[in-house]
């Protein structure tokens, strides 16, 4: 599945349905299959099939959908309400009508995959042919048609396009981090291919412009080139790439619901492993440099506390006096201040100051600052590299925490794992870190966590 105008059919092939349940051919664009549990699956064929467009424009799609509903089944809860797109599909302007019909089919499919992603994320994974590190880099050509044109495969020589090489190198570094530090084989721990699209664009009604964002769409990463005013290429920053890939890891593990506290934890874990991949990679480069100089590495830590950076996206932002990164995990709320284009970093550093509004799905990118600070405090209190004890505790937590977890749940699980696997000192460091940001682990809750 992919975002925007991308098609879904290539990732949910027809054969998926045969092993799941009954299938019905609805239209040239939509396929519907019932699952044994009573759910449903929908996939589309490529929207470029002109014949399909003509048939849909004559109304077959709408009629057939109505037919399903008339049978008393609710096949899908449309991502865009039917009244809206169906009205647009009947518009007098043929261009609007055509695009609305395409959106109707695509958005329907996107939303129908939602439950599938939760329960069967492996269906969206592209398996690596070698079951180990495998990267595919596509060029979206400035459009939102993902993935785009394949420009570099695993093992291919470097491209002339820096964005292609950055996506390739940084997704490789992220794979290596998870493999070497945690023994994890790609996002799904089964060798899933890492797919990236660079030069993604966004439509504004008149055409496309470079996307000022990066996202994980459920099966691949997409990176824009930035506006050049505030942000450069989103592939430039290793922590950004590792952040997006960690969303992928989460989709195969805790799959934290992307709203409210659980959504803020989802963002938190993505930031934690984004920054750890960068720190680990920098430490590796530093060690290699010291070996080259003939200096012993035995008695030296890869990074000292004062050298560590807890900034996210420092390489992404165009330098200015009012901004130095996208987020500061150590000092949330200070990454940018009174910036004319960004405003002031909204992240709180303490639970009492948490965002309570509805924007940003209940502040998933805002309240993550609270948990980010807790992680930094715990990591700094432990006498090793952040990806070792603290990183291991957080990684194990990411694997087992429930999808609707709260901050209190995260505090409880991290503290329990610290105590059980790393001892009393680690447990105390983690508990104190959460306490410092206003999230306490009560004795009763600790007992429940231990149970």
């Amino acid at each position, binding site marked *: 599945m992919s975002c925007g105008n991308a098609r879904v059919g290539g990732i949910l092939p027809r054969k998926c349905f045969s092993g799941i349940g009954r299938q019905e051919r609805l239209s040239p664009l939509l396929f519907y299959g019932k699952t044994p549990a009573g759910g449903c699956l929908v996939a589309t064929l490529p929207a470029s099939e002109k014949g399909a467009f003509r048939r849909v424009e004559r109304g077959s799609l709408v009629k057939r959908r109505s037919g399903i509903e008339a049978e008393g089944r609710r096949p899908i809860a449309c991502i865009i309400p039917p009244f809206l797109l169906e009205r647009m599909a009947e518009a007098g302007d043929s261009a609007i009508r055509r695009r609305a019909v395409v959106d109707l089919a695509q958005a329907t499919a996107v939303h129908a995959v939602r439950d599938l*992603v939760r329960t069967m994320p492996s269906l969206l994974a592209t398996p690596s042919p070698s079951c180990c590190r495998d990267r595919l880099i596509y060029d979206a050509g400035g459009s939102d048609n993902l993935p785009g044109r394949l420009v570099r495969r695993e093992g291919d020589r470097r491209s002339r396009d820096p964005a292609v090489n950055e996506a390739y190198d940084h997704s490789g570094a992220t794979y290596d981090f998870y493999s070497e530090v945690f023994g994890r084989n790609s996002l799904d721990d089964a060798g899933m291919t890492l797919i990236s699209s660079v030069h993604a664009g966004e439509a504004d009604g008149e055409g496309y412009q470079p996307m000022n964002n990066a996202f994980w769409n459920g099966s691949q990463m997409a990176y824009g080139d930035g506006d050049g005013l505030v942000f450069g290429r989103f592939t430039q920053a290793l922590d950004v790439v590792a952040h997006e890939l960690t969303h992928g890891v989460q989709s195969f593990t805790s799959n934290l619901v992307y709203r409210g506290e659980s959504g803020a934890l989802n963002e938190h874990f993505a930031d934690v492993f984004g920054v750890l991949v960068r720190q680990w990679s920098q430490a590796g480069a530093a060690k290699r440099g010291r070996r080259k100089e003939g200096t012993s590495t035995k008695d030296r830590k890869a990074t000292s506390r004062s050298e560590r950076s807890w900034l996210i996206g420092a390489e992404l932002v165009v330098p200015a006096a009012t901004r130095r990164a996208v*987020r500061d995990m150590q000092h949330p709320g200070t990454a940018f201040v009174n910036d004319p284009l960004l405003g002031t970093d909204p992240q709180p550093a303490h639970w009492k100051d948490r965002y309570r509004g509805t924007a940003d799905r209940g502040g998933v990118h805002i309240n993550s600052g609270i948990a980010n600070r807790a992680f930094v405090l715990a990591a700094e209190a432990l006498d090793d590299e952040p990806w070792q004890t603290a990183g291991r505790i957080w990684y194990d937590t990411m694997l087992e925490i429930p999808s609707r977890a709260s901050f209190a749940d995260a505090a409880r699980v991290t503290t329990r794992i610290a105590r059980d696997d790393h001892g009393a000192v680690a447990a105390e460091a983690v508990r104190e870190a959460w306490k410092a940001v206003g999230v306490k682990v009560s004795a009763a809750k600790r007992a429940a966590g231990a149970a």
Partner: protein
Amino acid sequence: MRRVSFTQSGGFVGVVHSCRIELATLAAEERASLEQLVAASGLEASCECLSESCRDGRIYEIVIEHETSVVRAVFDETSLPVAARPLVSFLKSRATPGLPR
């Protein structure tokens, strides 16, 4: 139509940009242009259409206040209808950092 409010949030960066446009304060030509964009967007009833699998997608909330009714539509960049993109583009160009004031 009396007022149109817009909030963009989310995205990798997570910053909020917003604007609130009182139609009475607009020049006649600009007002007509905005009314045309709203009409062409097809946003006639409230809805919230957010992808469950997309992470770091930007979120657009559009609130259209009429004399007797209010329409609140929420999309992300994977679900934003093609017909509503010109309206969002217009509103983005007027948005400034922070929540609507």
